[in-house]
């Protein structure tokens, strides 16, 4: 038996076999992971959705939408429609006047008919200079997602709100992962007193109700986006630090670290050039999974009124507006909620897919 294996290896020196005697091509971790990710339909759907959101957010200034703070008087609470705003305004006015007249048991009187025809004239002619300085026929606007209480385009609010939310998610995740990786790696590699102090500190931080601390932080230091980033980053690196520490501890006695150490590499070099790159898989998975949780945290704070402040919007702010208006103007809730939920779904699917794909245990097995 041993003979036959040797024979095989001699015949085909370039072919490596796995434990099922299948030939294995030498692939890098990333090629392998990508191959497995491609097979995961939900993760690919998530990836496509995220690319779509990213494209929309990046190209927002080029899209034919108003600015997120452009208010148009008279366009308040227009329902979502593919017809121009003027027509909807006219219909609404017409409906209201007729309803009032009906209640009094009469037809429209001359004054009211005059008002309606005035409105029709102004709809076709009225111009407005936008915040961007451009002059347009304002009532020809189409609001496919409707408008809010100040006559702002809900679609534009969702897109610009999405920019803010996604940015907070990304920056927050990167910051917390960065702090967590550096502290976790050092703690795992150095060990000893430093490690036990670090872990004690992490334990204490874990026992604190950190969401409450974030709320206090925002209340006490003011509701600026910078404070928001800071508050979220300082409470959220704990899990990453723990996971990375565990990884580093299992890697730090491997041969390549030994080799680096014997050729005179210092702690910093070993940690940052040898150990951390080898935990890249875990780090990427955690970053992906942190983005949606940061978006949720931000939305949670904005929902309580402690997050992003007007005129900026984020998905949390929009959903909060929607909740208070939903009895009569339910589109103000549905569109932002759907936009946000879809993005969170996609991020979670992608994160789960990446975790499966980057798991070294499943290497070369499909």
């Amino acid at each position, binding site marked *: 038996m041993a003979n036959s294996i040797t024979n095989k290896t001699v015949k085909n020196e370039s072919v490596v076999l796995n434990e099922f005697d299948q030939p294995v091509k030498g692939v890098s971790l990333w090629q392998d992971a990508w191959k497995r990710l491609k097979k995961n339909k939900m993760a690919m759907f998530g990836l496509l959705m995220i690319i779509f959101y990213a494209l929309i957010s990046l190209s927002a200034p080029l899209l034919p939408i108003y600015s997120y703070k452009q208010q148009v008087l008279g366009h308040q609470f227009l329902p979502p429609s593919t017809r121009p705003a003027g027509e909807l305004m006219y219909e609404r006015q017409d409906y209201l006047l007729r309803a009032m007249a009906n209640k009094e048991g009469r037809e429209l009187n001359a004054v009211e008919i005059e008002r309606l025809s005035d409105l029709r004239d102004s709809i076709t002619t009225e111009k407005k200079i936008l915040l961007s300085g451009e002059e347009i026929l304002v009532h020809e606007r189409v609001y496919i997602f409707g408008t809010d209480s100040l006559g702002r385009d809900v679609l534009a609010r969702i897109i610009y709100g999405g920019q803010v939310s996604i940015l907070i998610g990304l920056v927050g995740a990167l910051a917390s992962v960065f702090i967590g990786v550096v502290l976790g790696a050092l703690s795992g590699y150095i060990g000893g007193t430093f490690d036990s102090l670090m872990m004690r500190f992490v334990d204490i931080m874990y*026992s604190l*109700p950190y969401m409450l601390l974030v709320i206090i932080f925002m209340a006490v230091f003011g509701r600026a986006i910078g404070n928001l980033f800071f508050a979220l980053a300082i409470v959220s690196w704990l899990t990453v630090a723990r996971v990375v520490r565990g990884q580093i501890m299992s890697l730090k006695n491997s041969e390549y670290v030994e080799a680096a150490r014997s050729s005179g590499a210092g702690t910093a070099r070993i940690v940052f050039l040898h150990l951390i790159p080898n935990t890249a898989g875990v780090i990427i998975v955690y970053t992906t999974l942190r983005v949606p949780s940061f978006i949720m945290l931000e939305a949670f704070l904005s929902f309580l009124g402690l997050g992003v402040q007007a005129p900026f919007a984020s998905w949390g702010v929009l959903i909060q507006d929607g909740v208070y208006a939903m009895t009569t103007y339910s589109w103000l809730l549905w569109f932002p909620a759907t936009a946000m939920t879809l993005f969170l779904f996609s991020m979670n699917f992608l994160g789960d897919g990446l975790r499966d794909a980057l798991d070294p245990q499943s290497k070369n097995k499909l």
Partner: protein
Amino acid sequence: MSKYILRRALGLIPTMFIIVTICFFFIRLAPGGPFSSEKKIDPQILKNIEAKYHLDEPLVVQYVRYLGNVVRGDLGPSYKYKDYDVNFYIGKSLPKSLLLGSLALFFAVIMGMGAGMLSSLRQNTWVDYLSMSVAVIGISVPLFVIGPVFMYIFAIKLDILPTSGWIDEQGLKALIIPVFSLSLAYFATVARLSRASFLEALRSDYVRTARAKGLKASVIMFKHVLKGASLPVVSYLGPAFSGIITGSIVIEQIFRIPGLGRHFVQSAFNRDYTMIMGTVIVYSLILVLMNFLVDVIYGYLDPRISYK
């Protein structure tokens, strides 16, 4: 066992002490005192106010005084509502939040474990797919979307449940949507956790032995499988408690329930520092006690844990 419990219980004291200390000094870092406002206050009046609340003393003295009061169970006067103290507000609002939170947790654990058990017994059937789809939705959709959506469907469109308010005005019906929305995310996680651990336990050697002995299926399920499979759920209870506390803040906001969470957000807006600290101390105490309880239950369920 009792020695272990006692030691863990004593360990709660330093944790609470650290929390109170961090809170106290963290809030003192804030720019501007609790009485600084846009209105100009006469310096003498400000001085009198500060003297009344002992804010003119050195920080260390204030800290020791506050610590002493907290140990005696006095959380101090509210800075915003001058006729009442923090204890009064907490006493009024805490029972509502406790009821809401414990109902949600109870529902999440019982229903979640039930769904997990059913899914594991009927693996890859429609029961399994249905409960796991509900679980995916529960995990990914944030609470402040689920709450309003339920409210829209059941209170506004169908008009069978009240949109807001508490038991004293609406009766027990007022609890249904808040409890259900609050528990959905935890129901989902418990269902997924317990499905996986039930599947594992069902294939384990001790269950095979029990079957071989000819025990009844129900006895195997409830006596053998349940005990082993509930371990991951019990260890998830700790994070679930803190999640439900944060969640109840949102739910109380959406459904206008005058509980502790609403007071907390309100006091954060008002910069009512004693109120903020009192609320955080109460929340932390609940959390720390619950985690202690989870540890004890865990030790009881898992004989492999030694009490050293």
